[in-house]
């Protein structure tokens, strides 16, 4: 049942995307209407630019800005490799200490 629901959802999403040009038209009408109501004097090019920016931002992804949180997040993701490196370093240092002490 879950598989059937998943497939239906995907098809609905896909069919929705077939109406992407309609969505663009609706968005344009809405922006024009809003601008008229607020008394803004916007041009066709400005509206097109706004629509393009909207579609550009939808479904896009960007990593958080670098900082302490970002560093900690990366350390967590690479914890396995970091642990391995620490173990290797400890072994080397221990070996050196054992040989020269």
């Amino acid at each position, binding site marked *: 049942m879950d598989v059937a629901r998943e497939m239906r959802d995907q098809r609905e*999403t896909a069919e929705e*995307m*077939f*109406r992407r*040009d309609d969505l663009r038209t609706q968005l344009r009408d809405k922006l024009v209407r809003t601008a008229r109501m607020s008394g803004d004097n916007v041009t066709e090019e400005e509206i097109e630019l706004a629509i393009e920016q909207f579609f550009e931002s939808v479904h896009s*992804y960007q990593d958080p800005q670098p900082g302490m949180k970002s560093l900690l*997040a*990366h350390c*967590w993701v*690479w914890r396995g490799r970091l642990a391995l490196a620490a173990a290797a370093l400890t072994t080397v240092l221990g070996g050196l200490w054992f040989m020269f002490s």
Partner: protein
Amino acid sequence: MTIPGPTVHQQLMDAYKRLTEQLEQDRKSMHDVQEQYEKLDAERDDALRSLAQHYLPELTADAINSTWREVRSDISTLLLQKEDEDRSLQQKLKQLQENRTTTEKALLQATNVLDSAILEQNKVSAVVEKRLQEDTQFVELADRAAIAELALERAESNLHEIDQDAARKLPAYQASTLFQYLYERGYGQKEYRSRGLTRRIDRWLARYIDFTKARQGYDFLKQTPDQMRKIIAEDRRSLNIVMEELERKRDRVADEMGLPEKISLTDRLTRDRQQILQTANFVSESMNEVEDRINDLSDPRGSYYQQAIEIFRQTLVGFKSSDLKKRAEATKDDLTDDQIVARLSGVESDRGDLQEATRDRRNLQKQKQHVIEELGRVIQRFRAAHFDSVRSHFLDTLSIDEELAYTEDAEDARKLWQKIRRSQRWGDHESEDDAGGSSLKQVLVNAMGKAAGDERGDDARRAGARRLEYDSNSDARSAVRDDTGGSSSDHAG
């Protein structure tokens, strides 16, 4: 005041180099002579051709009868060949004209038949279309097909846009370490199994990068285009089914009205007409070629005339200018041939002058070559006698450049060596030991020179030197010690 040996040696070397360069320059300039020969030969050929054209102004029987006896037979043969070819071409042209008439008639007929067949086919097509338009089911299917086609075009346009969107945005997801970590662990899905601290930190990470929203975007960009492609393919299949149904209906009506037969007839007639048209074009091109050739033959100065002139020119090549002049003078009323022969004589005279000048230049070059060779030998002797040593000096009356200016042949060059030897003096005893060979003998030469005083010193030295040579020839042991093989022969010379 004396000139040092190295200076004289350098003067000799410079003179040798200068003479060699002059000779090389002379040889290079001989290429220009070849060009002059070619130019004169071309002028001669041109004059002979003009003379041939004058004596044979056109290729006709009358002109041949009044031209030179020597070429009459060959040119008559050429005229007969021309007339034969003309006759043959006339027959071929006649045949081609008949072919063209036949082909044009066939083409006209084929065009008429084809036009009738096309008209008939159009009539039947119109009836078929009318009957199909009257069929409500057909009209309904056609409407559905039109709507489906429009929807498909729109879907394909939207798919293209989504594809571009995915290609632009997916790399950011794939490059993110944090997102890929959670995605690969299946965070938020049933397959996610972590518990305790790991789960809590993963939850913090998911909130930090807003993983739920990012995953939705990623899934959308990954899956939607493929899903859209599948839907488009299904819709295309559905449209094809509708189209097949429409075609079946069309075929049924068309078969009833006999339209396929009409179409195949039209195709066959079109091919036939195309073939006839190709034949007509070929015949027309052949006729143009034959007509061009006939026009050339009818021209009394056409290609056959050019051949005749060439034959005439080759005959004239065998005649001497004097004979040609006599022939030209024989035609009292005609001055043109006299002018051409005069031009020819002028060219031949120029050629003779050029030949003579070339011969003289070659002889001069040979002489120069001999002088250079002899000068080379003088330099060899000069070095062998150690005259190029710093201890060797020459009287200031010796001028190499002046001597060479008067040198015309090898004999003069040989005399130069005698003059060099007579002008040569050794600077001191020690050096003469090396240069002359035996110190005792050199002592004799020097002592004789000094004893004789300034006036007769040179003669006394030469006498001593001759004695040196005599000793070297007679005394084998002395000859071995005395390394003056070159200078000995020089003395003899």
